[in-house]
């Protein structure tokens, strides 16, 4: 329809320039940085080969971070995908009428709030002396309960993880609801004629039909768990005693507290490898099941 040969490129070039300068080139450069010792402002750099990576694998904080990221992923799969699925099926079941819209909106609400705001909200909720959580527990136990949820190494990471479940379960639920709504009504009618209970309909009709979306949401959840930064930074900053470090905060601390840019770049490469391979798995799975 359009004959001019240059026009299509004119439409595309601005976008390509942005994507190359601010996404692709920095990411490639990051790989390069990871082989050097360098600082943020000083111009000099020393080639180290794979030494940064060797150092990372001997650093205890790295293992703490990996374990914390993994906890985040596992617990988020259980709550956001698992509970999210149960809520989605319940809200879309015939049992509910107009109320479903009300619950849907409420459950989704936390996910539209900025993570930094939610993080600070829970920073106060978990406060040992004046926080909501201890105050509510005190109501039930009658003696004053003063536990520093974010201050104790045993509970800090789980307190932050719990906050994310509060924030994002409704988000995953909405994604699942949208795909449940696309299931043809006839499938349920057939199941009903066969005398299926609502539980059986969920197991034999709904879940197989939205298998694809369950996979996609699981992958999003896992990737999110390894990209984690803000949640930790605004609540614990990685403390107490580095027990809540995750890969993102470990990278930040290495780069901007210890000024070891090359070493931090190597941590970024590890984040890249984990999130990128997970994405590739997602695409593979998505293509295998048709659209």
């Amino acid at each position, binding site marked *: 329809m359009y004959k001019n040969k240059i026009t*299509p490129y004119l439409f595309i070039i601005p*976008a390509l320039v942005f994507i190359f300068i*601010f996404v692709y080139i920095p*990411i490639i450069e990051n790989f390069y*940085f990871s082989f050097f010792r360098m600082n943020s402002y000083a111009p000099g750099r020393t080639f180290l080969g794979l030494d940064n990576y060797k150092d990372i694998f001997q650093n205890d904080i790295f293992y703490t971070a990996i374990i914390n990221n993994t906890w985040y992923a596992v617990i988020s799969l259980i709550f956001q995908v698992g509970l999210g699925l149960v809520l989605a099926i319940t809200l879309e079941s015939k049992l509910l009428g107009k*109320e479903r819209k009300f619950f849907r909106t409420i459950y989704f609400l936390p996910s539209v709030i900025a993570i930094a705001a939610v993080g600070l909200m829970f920073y*106060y909720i978990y406060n040992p002396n004046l926080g909501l959580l201890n105050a509510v527990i005190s109501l039930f136990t009658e003696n004053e309960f003063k536990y520093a949820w974010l201050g104790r190494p045993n509970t800090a990471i789980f307190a932050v993880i719990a906050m994310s479940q509060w924030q994002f379960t409704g988000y995953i639920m909405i994604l699942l609801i949208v795909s449940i709504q696309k299931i043809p009504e006839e499938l349920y009618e057939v199941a009903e004629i066969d005398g299926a209970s609502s539980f059986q309909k969920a197991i034999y009709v709904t879940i197989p039909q939205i298998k694809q979306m369950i996979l996609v949401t699981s992958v999003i959840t896992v990737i999110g768990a390894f990209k984690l930064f*803000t949640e930790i930074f605004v609540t614990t900053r990685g403390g107490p005693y580095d027990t809540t470090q995750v890969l993102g905060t470990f990278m930040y601390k290495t780069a901007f507290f210890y000024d070891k840019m090359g070493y931090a770049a190597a941590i970024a490469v590890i984040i890249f490898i984990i999130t990128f391979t997970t994405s590739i798995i997602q695409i593979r799975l998505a293509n295998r099941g048709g659209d």
Partner: protein
Amino acid sequence: MKYGSYNKSNYYIKKAITISILIVFAVLVLYPMYWVVISSLKTNNEFLSSPLGFPAKLRFENYLSAWNKGFSRYFLNSILINIVSVVLTVSIGAACAYSLARFEFKGKNIIFYTILAGLLLSPQVAVLPLFKLLVRLNLYNTYWALILPYVGFNLPFSIFLMRSYFLSIPREIEESAYIDGCNAFTTFIKIVLPISKPIIASAAIVTSRFFWNEFLFALIFIEDRSKYTIPIGLSHFRDSLTTDYTTMIAGITIAALPMIILFLIMQKQFIKGLTAGSVKG
């Protein structure tokens, strides 16, 4: 569907149980938010002495005090950065998406997949070289230090979203405009963009949610307090207002409200954009 008398009472019992459980979850979601809003309207003494109590008098002054202690500035910065980034992302993205949807040209597939692959790349992996680049370009600690990378990282998603929409528009509409003497550019501006309002709204909402929340770049690329965005300002507030709890909590509410309001007004576009993004993101 007809229920027997037994079945009917059974149905109501089931429904009552389900709704009670759903209400428990709704309370778990809403109560912390309610607590934050109520706390933001207390005096510091009320907040310290009875965390669960209701204030004697609603102190809206806390909001004024948060606003005056820097929030007005953070708010303005966030809005400014948000508007410029959204306009750039949507306009540059729409042009690119249109070309990919309508024109045939050499290298089209490679270009499309290169852009699409951008969806898989995490900002954390680019943040250190970007920091160095921005220092070199003298953009560090300016609004552009946030706007330019934000646009770069959000283009792949908006292009993906808008391209599939443009593909669904019947070609005939544009062909008649073309016969009437429009060129590719004027057709795009006068015909395509106006009928694409819903998808542009979705792209704008999803990207602006990203810009409004973004933390890592804003933390690293901005140094002056006067240029902080809301998330960074909030986080800084926590350290500087260590004893003024209720002002701080009013600040959290100010930060949360705009997106909640936007969501409640534009639920449909919100959810449409988010679900489209997740499928391939």
